[in-house]
């Protein structure tokens, strides 16, 4: 599970060459919106050669956002990007039909491709289909693309994001139901730090597991907000210690700090510790 996903324009060497310096948990190299239609071939070669040459410098997962399946660029994107250095694909304008087609196309190219698929939910139809999309086994996560979604619904985007509350909730619900990552929309007003922080906090409060970004200045904030807090970690450690003590004393149901402890509460604490270890906030031994 990743907290942060940073989009990197696929045809800009000056941005590409710094990609591995950022602390983003995952990178998304973009072949779609940031690349002019006449430069798609240039972008494919640039991303591919960059990933091959710099394989040893990467820190997290590397995804490639492909062009839409309804474009003349998609087939070549798949052919060129099915390389071991790419962990997965990000699929724009996903609907249940495009995802079914994608499954067939990718299987044809390489039945053992093993690529993770993150879909972008960015239309009214995509949101209607999100449960069916998330249920597909090869889908790893759903990313809400609020700008295109709002455009589809002719909504005016606000910094508070009330207009995308339903979309956020529905994406999260589908992802939780099928154990997938729910990735929040990027915040596009790059230099409004206060509104960005607020937006990331709201995304997390809806249940998003991570957030995407179009600018590296947001990565620190995303990683911080989507990590368990010190208090969360301390509470979880104390609760799990209490569970151990109860088990040692052969106690069934018990209360901790005045609240009854049941299985979901224990599992939530275990998840907090798992995340804390993954993000380097706790030593690995803490889980032993």
């Amino acid at each position, binding site marked *: 599970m990743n907290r942060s996903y940073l989009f990197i324009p696929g045809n800009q*060497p*000056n941005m*590409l*060459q710094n990609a591995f310096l950022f602390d983003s948990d995952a990178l998304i190299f973009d072949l779609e919106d940031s690349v002019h239609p006449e430069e798609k*071939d*240039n972008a494919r*070669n*640039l991303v*591919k*050669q*960059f990933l*091959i*040459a*710099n394989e040893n410098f990467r820190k997290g997962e590397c995804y490639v956002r492909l062009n839409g399946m309804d474009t003349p660029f998609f087939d070549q994107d798949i052919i060129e990007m099915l390389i071991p250095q790419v962990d997965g694909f990000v699929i724009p304008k996903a609907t249940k039909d495009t995802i079914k087609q994608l499954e067939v196309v990718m299987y044809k190219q390489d039945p053992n491709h093993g690529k993770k698929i993150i879909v972008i939910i960015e239309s009214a139809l995509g949101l209607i289909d999100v449960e069916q999309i998330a249920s597909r086994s090869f889908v790893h996560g759903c990313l809400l693309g609020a700008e295109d979604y709002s455009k589809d619904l002719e909504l005016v985007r606000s910094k508070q994001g009330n207009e995308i509350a339903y979309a956020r909730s529905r994406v999260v619900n589908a992802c939780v139901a099928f154990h997938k990552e729910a990735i929040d929309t990027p915040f596009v007003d790059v230099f409004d730090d206060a509104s960005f922080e607020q937006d990331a906090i709201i995304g997390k409060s809806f249940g998003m597991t991570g957030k995407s970004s179009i600018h590296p200045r947001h990565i620190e904030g995303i990683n911080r907000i989507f990590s368990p807090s010190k208090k969360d970690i301390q509470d979880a450690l104390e609760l799990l210690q209490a569970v151990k003590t109860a088990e040692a004393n052969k106690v069934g149901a018990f209360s901790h700090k005045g609240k009854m402890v049941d299985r979901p509460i224990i599992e939530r604490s275990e998840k907090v510790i798992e995340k804390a270890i993954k993000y380097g906030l706790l030593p690995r031994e803490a889980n032993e």
Partner: protein
Amino acid sequence: MKKGIAGSKQSSDCYCIVTDKQPQQILIDSVVGAFFHDQMLKVIHSTLHECGKDHLSVELIDRGALDSTIKSRLLTAIERMKEDE
């Protein structure tokens, strides 16, 4: 004469022109040529060889591109040249 062009003259990029002009010429104009001319030449020759196009002429205007950027722009220029064939 067949020709293929790729890249840009922006910082960290390179502008690459490939032709089938004979005799072969490899021209490199780089802001860091004094330090990296030989390395860039090596990338050009190995990329041409990889494509089975050792005979092609290349003009490279470099603005501080990484080896992988030079290789990718050269590959695209060669592929674009193919489109004219």
